[in-house]
């Protein structure tokens, strides 16, 4: 603090506010785009926009708050948050509320929340903390323990069942381990192990509806009116959009309600129908700017913990984007992953921006330390 007072021109207003302006700009443009598409997808319902704006405001508040926290604090609390999270996940399975056929909610009396959302941040925090305790790259036993730390919440969430979230959590942990420098030989071995695990997953762990989703994904036209309906309508929406799109509010697939989950998980189909391939490229550029900025922050971070955490948060953000776009356009099976910062919805929005808050904390903190 003292040093910064001595070098006022080196510490900008942004740094004092612990805000990364590039990241903030990217996020705001993305949110604005989201509101524009929600307005179209939600049947021009201003109430919907209002609720989303309130959520965004709340989430931005969380982001700003977390941006003020020094990364060392995250590091210190990682282990406590992690085990608290695991306890809550167990609690959810035992006493959780059932919503939409899955047990995801924990009712604390005054509020209901999804512990799995918290785990999206605490798992990378925990792994980053655990692995950065020793110098990089991690050793084999560290990796094994790391995978165990990762596997427990992943399985607990998959059991709820919430395939989308468990996928995101698993990848967030894997990114930590990968970025930490796990040897390529181990990666190859793991890949082989995973391909061996797939049949076990299919036969013993996956729920019937999840299997159905995968089967439908492999051949959506086999059941055009049943479970394949969503993906067929979605592909029609995207394909009929063409290069330049049908224009805002002009997407017939969405406006005439042929598309399911228009303003939530399938909002990308609405976007593609109305803004076409050109719109998609611009949107992807926006996402790339955010991801690149995130990776730059990670690279510039001083401490291994911050590097790993920032990298994991950024890459998980990409996983969101890729899985959502992939599932809506028929590349991946339909798992419930929203298009980050664009889809309508609250819980994941708060978690996402909380992650960006940590990124900003790391980003602004780094500068201060790098002066040493």
């Amino acid at each position, binding site marked *: 603090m003292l040093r910064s007072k001595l070098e006022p021109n080196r510490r900008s207003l942004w740094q004092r506010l612990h805000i990364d302006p590039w990241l903030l700009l990217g996020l705001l443009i993305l949110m604005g785009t989201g509101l524009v598409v929600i307005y179209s997808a939600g049947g021009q319902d201003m109430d919907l926009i209002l609720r989303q704006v309130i959520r965004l405001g709340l989430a931005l508040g969380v982001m700003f708050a977390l941006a003020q926290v020094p990364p060392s604090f995250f590091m210190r609390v990682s282990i406590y948050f992690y085990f608290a999270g695991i306890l809550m996940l167990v609690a959810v399975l035992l006493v959780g509320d059932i919503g939409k056929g899955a047990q995801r909610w924990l009712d604390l009396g005054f509020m209901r929340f999804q512990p799995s959302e918290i785990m999206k941040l605490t798992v990378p925090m925990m792994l980053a903390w655990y692995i950065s305790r020793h110098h990089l790259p991690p050793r084999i036993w560290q990796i094994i323990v790391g995978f165990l730390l990762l596997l427990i919440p992943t399985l607990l969430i998959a059991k709820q069942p919430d395939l989308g979230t468990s996928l995101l959590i698993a990848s967030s942990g894997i990114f930590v381990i990968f970025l*930490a420098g796990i040897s390529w030989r181990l990666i190859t071995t793991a890949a082989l192990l995973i391909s061996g695990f797939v049949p076990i997953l299919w036969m013993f762990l996956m729920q019937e509806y999840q299997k159905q989703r995968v089967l439908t994904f492999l051949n959506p036209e086999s059941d055009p009116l049943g479970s394949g309906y969503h993906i067929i309508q979605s592909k029609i929406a995207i*394909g009929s959009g*063409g290069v330049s799109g049908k224009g805002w509010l002009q997407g017939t697939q969405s406006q*005439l309600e042929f598309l399911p989950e228009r303003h939530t998980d399938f909002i990308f189909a609405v976007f593609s129908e109305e803004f076409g*391939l050109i719109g998609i490229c611009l949107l992807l550029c926006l996402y790339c700017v955010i991801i690149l900025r995130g990776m730059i922050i*990670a690279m510039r971070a001083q401490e291994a913990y911050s590097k790993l955490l920032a990298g994991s948060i950024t890459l998980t953000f990409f996983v969101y984007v890729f899985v959502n776009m992939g599932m809506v*356009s028929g590349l991946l099976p339909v798992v419930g992953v929203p298009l980050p910062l664009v889809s309508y919805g609250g819980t994941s929005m708060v978690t996402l921006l909380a992650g960006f808050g940590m990124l900003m904390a790391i980003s602004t903190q780094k500068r201060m330390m790098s002066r040493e």
Partner: protein
Amino acid sequence: MARKRVIIRDHTAEANLFARRTFFTLVGIALLISLLISNLYYLQVTRHTDYQTRSNGNRIKVLPVAPNRGLIYDRNGILLAENRPSFSLEIIPEQVEDLDATLAELSTLLGISADEIEDFHHERKGQRRFKPVALRTRLSEQEVALFSANQHRFPGVAVEARLTRHYPQGEVLTHMLGYVAKINKKDLQKLTEAGEEENYAATHNIGKQGVEKFHESLLHGKVGYQEVEVNNQGRIIRTLDFKPPVPGEDLVLNIDVRLQQVVRQQLEGYRGSVIVIDARDGGVLALYSNPSYDPNLFVHGISSKDYRALLQSPDRPLINRATQGQYPPASTVKPHMALLGLEQGVITPQTRMFDSGSYALKNVERKWRDWKKWGHGWVDVTRAIEVSCDTFFYDMAFRTGIDKISDMMSELGFGDYTGIDLYEESDATLPSRGWKKARYNQAWYPGDTVNVGIGQGLWTTTPLQLAKSVTTLVNRGRRFVPQLMRGRYVNGELVINEPKELPPIQLRNPENWEIVLDAMYGVVNREHGTGHKAFKGTHYVSAGKTGTAQVVSMAEDEEYDAAKMAEHLRDNAMYIGFAPYDNPEIVITVAMENAGGGGSQAAPIARRVMDYYFDGAKPELVLNNDAAQ
């Protein structure tokens, strides 16, 4: 503690390791994004047209629009079949807040019954919530007014007008005009076979009988299309394109509905039919079969109770007696037989024979009696027709032989469909050797020929065949085919059909026409003629022939006593006639089942119809029970 760890670590090595890994992940991200984009390129560029088509297929529905059915007029422009708006009370369930309360209120307002409400609920369950469901169809004007005044109380309930077929003349024209009714499975199958199902995609009713059926293709018109945009529920959002339907053609019939009404009055209380044909072109001026029924019953779907009543009625009102009734022609065909005898040289105008009251064949025990027990004395062909002598024709027919009889009568149209524009027609039976062999596997006996000579025995005819044959007689061989349709309106102008004609009959001696027609003149206009009494005092000169057909054959010594006979075994009364004699305008046939004598029962009816035709006179009921025959 953290600081200590930092000190012992090789930060540069860690940063380099992290940077390498970051590089790998960025390469991975780039690859995955390329994968996404190439897939989106495939969807949005390579297969764009395909998905565009499917997107349009989702949202664009082509709805058929039914054409308005052509109207039908009589020859004087009086409307016989029209399309009337019929009002129905319809509810859109989605727009009604409290359906039960609304229904209860409507019940008190319009007296809707529990049955109607039950039907409504039944229909509603199979429908989308935004589609209107009829609560009551065919509202009266009063009900429409009553509801309209209270409409503000019933959001989501409305009176809808639809065009439905209506026959303002009711029972008067049923058998010839027919009716339309709901397209059933059989109709649908026929339409499919004819490749017409698309044209009927929006049509509810189809011609089932009469002119409505025969001229269906003219009356129906061509289906139109409305291209609409729908949402995923099938709800119409807006109309994109409209190709209007081509309405059916308006037809004009030869029928004179006022004449038809007169005919109907005359036949009241009888089972029978009257046909009036324009002698100059074969146009059917009146064609009525009694008893009749109201065709409007069928348009909205006849109740099974009403239908059963029609089906089971001993009077068989569903039959068109004019075209489907098969009767022995009896004495009405004596002019035809005489023509044949003259033409074949079996008789000459001078041939005379003595009628003693019966006729016998060699080696045949039974005798054929004349209707006049004591005979007609000396008769030639003219007098034989005038007094309707049976014996003369027994003998003549026997000497002519069945082969020549069936040939000639076939040329005159017996035993075959007349070609009228109706499907409800019978070909009746013109007997011949071949026919009897095929039908009964029996040889033809000379006695059979004798019976045929007076239009009895195996011979049956429809009244329309008879009318057609008389038209041929009065036109001296020109064979007009009776036609109901006179023409149609094309762009508002009446285009009249050419009369339908078969090649004329050429006689070796055309003089024979005159002999026969003169005898028919005598029937009406000479003192001893069987039709004389019925036509006394007309302002016009008509000609004709009476006929009294036995329904049951009687033993030769049995007396016919109408009073003692069961009603349905009594004689049929027949009459054929035409007028004016010199320049015939109309031909008429009267066929009355179990009514008694042709001269006493059928001829007066023909006369009153002619009176109306020529004098416009309101026919009065003339009782004429004591006529000769």
